[in-house]
């Protein structure tokens, strides 16, 4: 068996960083990254970007050495992606925050509202309902992070956790402040409005969960394969006929329900900002589906049927 020699150069300075000899032809990029890590312990594999060309795309961990367009002495370029943090850690932190923060406002912990309201509860039953819905939503997200989602990437840049937590925690505090305020005004159309809102909210929560399960089942455990999602026996997944990212569609629906339930402008604002971000993500995902799969269903839109 002919062995390969691998040299790794810095993508910016072209300095020779590492030389590996006697590398198996069937070695993967992932294994090469581990070997590189040994000589440079500060660059753990997750923060290594290995490419064939200094300005090219990153090679995948699964790529096999002998299948790459390289000679028996392979030259790779290295770029430091910066400190990395696992997706699971980020998700758990960014979701645990809103759960706890909202409850602090709900229980009227001291120093938020006037002292005479400390540890009192709202006299409006919709406020209790809203707390249950908000808490349910984030508990669901935490459980899905731990047991349902299968992440393609292990890590993301460290700075993302600060950005994401500021967004989620900040908005949670802003919404919770008004909903649990002693001077909160319940919805204009009372019980009718709240009932409709609750139905929309629950419907979309179940829908969102159904999509997450369907997406999980597309991918066997430990694999990173990508397939076109299709409707399953579960009616909540039939929306796949019209939309590429129905999880985002249902998420929008949930927050519209919550906005209707609380009739709180900060909630409407949070829904709008979330919608804009999810639309950007949905359009990107839709585009990559179209690029990757020739037979991708033409009827589908990224996030809103026929519209967006």
């Amino acid at each position, binding site marked *: 068996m002919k062995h390969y020699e691998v040299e790794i150069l810095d993508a910016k300075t072209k300095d020779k960083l590492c030389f590996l000899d006697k590398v198996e032809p069937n070695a993967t990029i992932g294994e090469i990254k581990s070997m590189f890590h040994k000589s440079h312990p500060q660059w753990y594999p997750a923060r290594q970007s290995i490419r064939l060309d200094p300005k090219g795309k990153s090679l995948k961990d699964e790529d096999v050495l002998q299948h790459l367009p390289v000679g028996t002495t392979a030259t790779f370029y290295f770029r430091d992606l910066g400190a990395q943090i696992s997706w699971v850690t980020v998700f758990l932190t960014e979701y645990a925050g809103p759960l706890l923060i909202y409850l602090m406002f709900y229980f009227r912990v001291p120093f938020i509202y006037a002292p005479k309201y400390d540890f009192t509860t709202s006299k409006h039953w919709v406020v209790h309902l809203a707390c249950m819905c908000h808490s349910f939503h984030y508990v669901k997200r935490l459980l899905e992070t731990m047991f349902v989602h299968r992440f393609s990437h292990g890590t993301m840049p460290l700075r993302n956790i600060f950005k994401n937590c500021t967004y989620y925690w900040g908005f949670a505090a802003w919404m919770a402040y*008004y*909903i649990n*305020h002693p*001077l*909160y*005004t319940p919805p*204009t159309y009372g019980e009718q409005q709240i009932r409709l809102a609750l139905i929309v909210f629950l419907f979309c929560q179940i829908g969102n969960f159904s999509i997450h399960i369907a997406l999980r089942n597309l991918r066997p455990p430990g694999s990173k394969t990508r397939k076109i999602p299709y409707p399953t026996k579960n009616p909540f997944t039939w929306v796949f006929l019209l939309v590429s990212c129905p999880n985002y569609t249902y998420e929008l629906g949930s927050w519209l329900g919550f906005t209707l339930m*609380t*009739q*709180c*402008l*900060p909630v409407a604002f949070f829904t709008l900002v979330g919608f804009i971000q999810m639309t950007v993500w949905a359009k990107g995902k839709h585009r990559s589906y179209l690029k990757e799969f020739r037979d991708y269903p033409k009827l589908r839109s990224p996030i809103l049927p026929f519209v967006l």
Partner: protein
Amino acid sequence: ASGEEDGAVEEKETNNKKRTKGAIATAWLTFYNIAMTAGWLVLAVAMVRFYFHKGTHKGLYKTIARTLKFFQTFALLEIGHCAIGIVRTSVIVTGVQVSSRIFMVWFITNSIRQIQNEESVVLFVVVWTLTEITRYSFYTFKLLNHLPYFIKWARYNLFIVMYPLGVIGELMTIYGALPYVRRSGMYSLRLPNKYNVSFDYYYFLIIVMLSYIPLFPQLFLHMLRQRRRVLHGEVIVEKDE
């Protein structure tokens, strides 16, 4: 063969359309920049004449208010220019700069009568006037391909003094307005209301003042970098000659 000819004809038509669009854009931008240079010159003259006649700045704002509001508001078009691509600057940078001017004019000076005769108002209005006359005449001459060096020099050097002075004038004005805002409760929304939201203009203004701390250095450094790029290149050419 005829297919190829059609393709060539189509390409010529598209190129002609592009050239026409480019010509229209240049014509419009030239008109826009001449008009804005003139507008701010009128403001400068009005301010000088007022001071010569009255010897004080009290009552100056009232006299120039309409002209100032008109020409500063008209600058909103610059965001559009960036958005449709006829000016190659970031929409966000232009948006932030124009918005902060609109904010100072309409939401501070125009709406809080009690601070209109403050010296800080004169300070930032004078700074804006000098800056805008330089900036718009720079664009005008550049578009007409006859840019005198002294205007280029002014555009990339005066800001070093103008920017900090303008910031001082603006901050002092906002700070001076705070007591009146608090007392009147203007632009504020209190609980309870059916939207379950509140807004306190007084605290909002304090946040605006604090935001100058991260924003001003960034804008200033951006101008310094542009200055180095524009003037530094010139120096090298002169040395070779």
